[in-house]
């Protein structure tokens, strides 16, 4: 039995790696990918808790299903927006998409 803490540390690490990716990457698609990483880390967390603390009701697993669902939806929509922006500005560099600034 892997101790619960180790799973939590692992998912925390994955979350933080994804966070770094969101902040540091310039390509919009890569940012979206990093968001996927973060969401999956959360899902792992939920599943771990479900397995250890609440196995009879497995609410965490249900939650994780929903997380995956919403993540997929959000990814689709996000990519649609990126494509649209690409058509207009021929770039997906987040640093160059800064019209709403001072």
């Amino acid at each position, binding site marked *: *039995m*892997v101790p*619960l*803490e*180790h*799973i939590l540390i*692992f998912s*925390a690490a*994955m979350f*933080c*790696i994804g*966070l*770094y*990716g969101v*902040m*540091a*990457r*310039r*390509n*919009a*698609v*890569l940012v*979206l*990918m*990093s968001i*996927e*990483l973060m969401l*999956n880390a959360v*899902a*792992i967390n939920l*599943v771990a808790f*479900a*397995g*250890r*603390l609440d*196995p*009879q*009701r*497995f609410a965490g*697993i*249900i939650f994780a*299903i*929903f997380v*995956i*669902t*919403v993540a*997929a*939806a959000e*990814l*689709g*929509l996000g*990519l*649609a927006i*990126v*494509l649209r922006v*690409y*058509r207009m500005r021929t770039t*997906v*560099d987040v*640093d160059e998409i800064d019209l709403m600034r001072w």
Partner: protein
Amino acid sequence: MDLGQFLFYAAAAATLIASLGVVLTRHVVYSALLLVLALSLTGLIYLLLLADFLALVQILIYGGTVSVLLVFALMLTRPQERPVLTHRGWPLAALGAVVLFAILLYQSLATPWLTSVSDARAAIGATPGVAATATPLGRSPGGVPVARLGEPFRAGPSDIGTALFSTWAVPFEIASLVLLVALMGALVVARAAGEPAAEPRPPAP
């Protein structure tokens, strides 16, 4: 350590390395492929955590559709020259991520998780003879009887299906609504500006 534990640690390590690759590499396609790898390994981890159905769902969705979607997106938005993929300010971002990790680490280790019967009894100070229930994760009512804490339980597809349509029916419907909205939104947004849906063509002379 037994096989299960070893597999878990190996998969976890591989996932983390793949994730690092996703955020650090300079080739976008490598990022995409490494992401697929990471998420697939996550599916394996779900399996090790006794969530079979979820592992299937994960591999289907992420390994199947999401990866394809991402590759397409990368293909369609390919810049002309070799771009710089990381901000100038990436050390700060790294610092932020590390700090957050440290906090989460500390929190995971410091919290007394009620993962065994003895822990639960100690936490609630149960007196013998009284049917003690522990409320896992804090505050929800109707706790699991203490006697059954720590017993592994594999949630199969039928269990999950039943739960989805009974206890979690409302969130299920809402999730389907979300998907519908996302679908339509993506259609509208991605359509080229000014492109007519179906314009009647003038009759050819």
